């Protein structure tokens, strides 16, 4: 854990969290507790997490949870419905149990294994009701990797605002929300350790989310971790895609970033307009694509050589 002048940086399980705000350290520590609570409940790597209890009870029974705990489940299901399954949190059977991304047992599965596992991916069998969460078929698994960091970033920025922050920055594993100050937010190059662009924000709330194939993969970037639900395998439209949206809707943006990564460039503009987001995409050949920046509330964007 390291202290900035008016901020806090800590690693909570696998997620690096940076909080900067004009608030006391005590409040920043309290905010950090939110992250720890979240990880305890929703981490796929924690055996006794709420998420894993839902997975273990798939096809058996629902798991009772509080209204607060149901919030992420509900949002994930909403996104799945709105995207007609392009984003689907029931992808866990593929990501965790077949590819096993992030585990020592991770492997490139056979087509037969993928075909079999794909049958258990269907958001329509994911039920969230007033008291409980339930997966209808045995073997189904939830994975919030495509939405969780955005959710926690949104929670943190809301918490800091409610505590009286006039300016704040939250960085939850690369999912970034800011307000109140002109922050410089860099977009990392997928090819080097450097940055390809820096966005200077206005003081209005704004959120950033990036998906990329260059950090988590098995053996090579050919087998990166952002799966296409339809094929249960990987697309290679982009090396990296960054979404920027006015406001603090990190949950939505994180999910849409996952969807955008599996959207061919001809359909990217429609996706951007549908969700009112700006997109910077870097194709595998190194071409830069920009969509829907006209109405984005930023002060400047500076580009560097790739």
């Amino acid at each position: 854990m390291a202290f900035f002048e008016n901020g806090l940086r800590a690693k909570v399980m696998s997620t690096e969290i940076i909080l900067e705000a004009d608030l006391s350290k005590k409040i920043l520590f309290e905010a950090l507790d939110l992250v720890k609570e979240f990880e305890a409940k929703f981490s796929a790597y924690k055996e006794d997490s709420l998420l894993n209890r839902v997975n273990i009870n798939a096809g058996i029974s629902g798991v009772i949870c509080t209204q607060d705990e149901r919030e992420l489940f509900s949002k994930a299901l909403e996104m799945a419905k709105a995207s007609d399954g392009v984003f689907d949190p029931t992808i866990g059977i593929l990501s965790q149990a077949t590819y096993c991304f992030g585990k020592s047992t991770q492997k490139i599965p056979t087509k037969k294994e993928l075909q079999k596992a794909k049958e258990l991916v269907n958001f329509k069998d994911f039920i969230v009701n007033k008291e409980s969460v339930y997966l209808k078929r045995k073997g189904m698994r939830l994975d919030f990797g495509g939405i969780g960091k955005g959710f926690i970033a949104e929670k943190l920025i809301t918490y800091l605002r409610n505590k009286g922050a006039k300016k704040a920055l939250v960085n939850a594993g690369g999912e970034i929300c800011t307000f109140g100050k002109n922050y410089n937010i860099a977009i990392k190059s997928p090819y080097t350790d450097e940055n390809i662009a820096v966005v200077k924000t206005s003081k209005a709330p704004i959120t950033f989310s990036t998906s990329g194939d260059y950090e988590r993969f098995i053996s090579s970037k050919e087998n990166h971790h952002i799966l296409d639900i339809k094929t249960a395998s990987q697309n290679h439209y982009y090396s990296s895609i960054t979404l920027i949206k006015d406001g603090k809707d990190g949950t939505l943006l994180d999910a849409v970033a996952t969807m955008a990564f599996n959207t061919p460039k001809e359909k990217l503009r429609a996706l951007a307009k549908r969700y009112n987001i700006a997109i910077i995409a870097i194709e595998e050949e190194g071409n830069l694509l920009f969509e829907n920046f006209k109405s984005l509330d930023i002060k400047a964007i500076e580009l560097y050589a790739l």
Partner: protein
Amino acid sequence: MQIKYLFFAIISLVTLEINSFASNLKDSMSFGFNTYNDNANVNVYSPTFSLFKKVSHKWMLGFKMRIDGITAASIKNGANGGHVDAVTGASLNENNFDDVRYAPTLMATYDDGDNTLTLGGYYSTEKDYDGKSLFMNYVRQLNQQNTALGIGFSQSFDKWSPVFDRALPKDNRNERKLDLSINQLITPTFSIQGVFSYMYSEGFLSSPYHYVLQGDIAKFENYPDQRAGEAYSLKSVYLFNDANAMNVSYRYYKDDWDISSHTINIEELHDFSHRLTSGLRLRYYTQTKSNFVQEIGNYNANDAYFATDYRMSAFDSFTIGIPFIYKVGRKNKLTASIDYYQTTKNDYIKSWYDVDSISAVFTSLNYKFDF
């Protein structure tokens, strides 16, 4: 009482009460932590360690280590500071700091009471820069140790390895420095010190990453590849009484880039008890601009030199600080300080850091014990 001993330590002279010309070497170890934080979001955290060990009556070996953890460090590419507050990417950088610099120093000291000779070497490494230097200092006590003449020399051999793909015109940066000093005890309570310094640098003296962006001009920062300067300083230390001392110093510097500066330091120290000494220090600095820096926006494409660093322009700065010395025991000492630094408004600071002036706080904490 502590002030009195400190007075003589400052001026490196032995009082008339001590008749022996024995070596002053002592085994000691120290641990320290220094910080620097400014409003341009540069933060440096530096733990330090030193160990000095006598290997004979007249010889001592020393080792120092300093580690600087720097956020918002040197590797910023572009036409203005654009320090980055956060990075969005598929995964975050694992490191906590933008850059970490490791700087060990090794030295050997010979001291027979009249002559003190120190030889040493320093090495520092960071992501894009390696520094190596050798140094030598010699002090000769004269006139029943009321006078001390000193000469010091250092030569560094540094090298740039820019993280961006850029071929530099030269990748070396060498500096040499010569100091000549004289310390004279005028009365038992008053001493003066005069120092002449000569500095010469050659090689790649700019930043590899910064560039001037103006209209349709985008030119990498470029300074002359040689710089020669000299400095003259005068320092006086006055012991008012057993519990109060003041030191006042003035330094004048000029170089062949046409930068000249004046520095005035005043420090007053007071013994609050037989263990605790504290005081107040003030520093004022003013410098002129270099002969190649232009007003922001006035560069031409065929100019020979381009600057983005505010230290190439004219500015003033003020520092106010409080030092603390606490004697834990006969052989243990805790020293600490806190200083506030403020520059005047400067267009280059505004252009690079998006603040009108630099405000900084730096602190130090050090625990030293003899064994």
